[in-house]
């Protein structure tokens, strides 16, 4: 018996040794981009073009690997040893978490243009074909005859944007009257028949189960929903007012320094701002930053007044403490559901 276990231990040892990372200071030919859990096709397309352009520019071959998961999980994994050279997240707080742990520069927001967010999106609406309930803006979502579907803000970053967008809209409508804004969001939450844990689950509830009149999700997602399920089933409605959703990027300095990939990592994120990359980003219905690309794609993106988390809530940190912390405003407004 001892021989068997010894042999097994040897096999494990060999397996480990085979996959042990060789320590090398030379510039690696792969980098890992840890990103969020939706819209993977965007980065598949971006990486392909980056690889050819990087080769043309520097003469070096590089492969960009992709890791996809919720960005809180990604940040946690990086701290536990996932060797991501860059992060492209959809939640500022998760980049900040990495900065607090010393993996990302404290001033990461100033390292790249536009607050280190190469593109942006906003919570938008998907309605049944022909928009039978005539849903136009956020105040339509609190009508008695309208049922709304979005995921649980407790578990979904996507839904937190929806929650904050509705709250910011109410604050603006009622001139900053918090009591009225609370009542508005409480009514909105009461109009949601099912809370799924994530954006994909909410889409399934809306499309496959036929529940609700409006699905609220990122504008970038609404196009994917329409493409998958067809324009005979759904229409897209952009509300007149919404909330700016940034997609923050950062070099994970600690990993890049260890692997010697600083130059590629920085080059990759800078390239996301190039016209070519911005065109691909816009093709996936994310709103580009490049003025020329924005102009060329103006027909695709209806005009919308964008509120910001900074202006409406005093930043993500504060919004998180006031609204999403245990016992916070969300918990209070959820009561009675």
């Amino acid at each position, binding site marked *: *018996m001892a*021989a*068997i*276990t010894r*042999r*097994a231990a040897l*096999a*494990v040892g060999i*397996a*480990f*040794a085979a*996959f*042990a*990372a*060789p*320590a090398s200071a030379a510039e690696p030919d792969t980098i*890992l981009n840890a990103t969020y*859990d*939706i*819209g*993977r*096709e965007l980065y598949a397309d971006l990486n392909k073009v980056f690889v050819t352009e990087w080769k043309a520019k520097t003469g070096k071959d590089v492969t960009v*690997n*992709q*890791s*996809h*998961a919720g960005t809180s999980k990604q940040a946690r*994994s990086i*701290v*536990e*040893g*996932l*060797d991501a050279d860059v992060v492209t997240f959809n939640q500022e707080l998760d980049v900040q978490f990495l900065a607090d742990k010393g993996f990302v520069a404290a001033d990461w927001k100033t390292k790249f243009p536009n607050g280190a967010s190469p593109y942006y999106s906003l919570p938008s609406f998907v309605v049944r074909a022909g928009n039978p309930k005539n849903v136009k803006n956020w105040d339509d979502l609190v009508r008695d005859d309208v049922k709304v579907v979005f995921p649980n803000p407790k578990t979904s970053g996507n839904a937190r944007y929806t929650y904050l967008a509705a709250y910011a809209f109410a604050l603006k409508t009622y001139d900053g009257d918090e009591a009225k804004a609370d009542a508005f969001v409480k009514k909105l939450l009461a109009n949601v028949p099912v809370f799924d844990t994530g954006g*994909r689950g909410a*889409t399934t509830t809306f499309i496959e189960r036929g529940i609700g009149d409006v699905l609220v999700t990122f504008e970038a997602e609404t196009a*994917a*929903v329409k*493409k*998958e399920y067809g324009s005979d089933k759904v229409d897209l409605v952009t509300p007149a007012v919404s909330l700016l959703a940034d997609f923050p990027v950062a070099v994970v300095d600690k990993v890049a320094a260890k692997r010697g990939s600083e130059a590629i990592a920085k080059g990759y994120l800078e390239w996301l701002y190039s016209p070519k990359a911005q065109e691909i980003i816009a093709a996936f219905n994310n709103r580009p930053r490049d003025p020329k690309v924005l102009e060329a794609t103006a027909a695709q993106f209806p005009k919308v007044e964008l509120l910001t988390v900074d202006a409406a809530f005093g930043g993500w940190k504060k919004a998180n403490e006031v609204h999403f912390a245990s016992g916070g405003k969300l918990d209070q407004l959820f009561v009675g559901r």
Partner: protein
Amino acid sequence: MSAARRPRIGDGPLFRAGLLAAVLLVTALVIGGPLVVIFVEALKLGWGAYFANLTTPDTRHAIWLTVATALIAVPINVAFGIAAAWAIAKFEFRGKGLLTALVELPFSISPIVAGVAYLFVYGAQGWFGPTLDALGIKVMFAYPAIVLASLFVTAPFVAREILPLMQAQGSSEEEAALSLGASGWRTLWSVTLPNIRWALLYGAVLTNARVMGEFGAVSVVSGSIRGVTNTLPLQIELLYQDYNAAGAFAAATVLAGIALLTILAKLIVERFSSRDA
């Protein structure tokens, strides 16, 4: 009224038919329906699209990675299962109850908890993380982590299958072999293993099916790098989240196929084992 005249459950023909219909209905709704849906959805766009979906580099790699994981995890857990069952069934020692309970622990722990626990032991912030890092050995978010998580989740399968058999058979045959001068190895190969071969094979088949299908524990420790550390179940989730339902279902047919083969293997093994008995 005497107890003997009271009708037993299932005696009435109407009751029996109703019970049978209920079981069939539940089976159809809970198992049959989803299974059919997997194949219907996968083939919705035709065979060409089906094979195109199956042969995308990322999905192909996921299939390969899943097979590679099983190739390491199944033999290790077969060896472990035999060792554990042998120790428990053939010997008397202190802490035997504790060992039995430990072997079965993975059955009662949620796989996600197992994954997180591994992270706290082998992760960069965990017990062994700094040492492993200093040695340049990458365990978490790489192939070894996937194998480790799979090993944990499937540890009890083989032992659970062969233990009752070994206990029922007792150790008299082994004692006879030893008293006739056979070595420990000879006893294992010529006496113990032949007695338990069908249960052992069934345990291995179950282990394989679970290794290939494991999602929760692997999801925590794999890092979900597509084309690198995405196993088949993770790849299916990735495709589904991406609104690529056809691709997700195509990949799912591979797992469903493995499940069907497992059932087939089980039937064959059961036939052989009852013939032997």
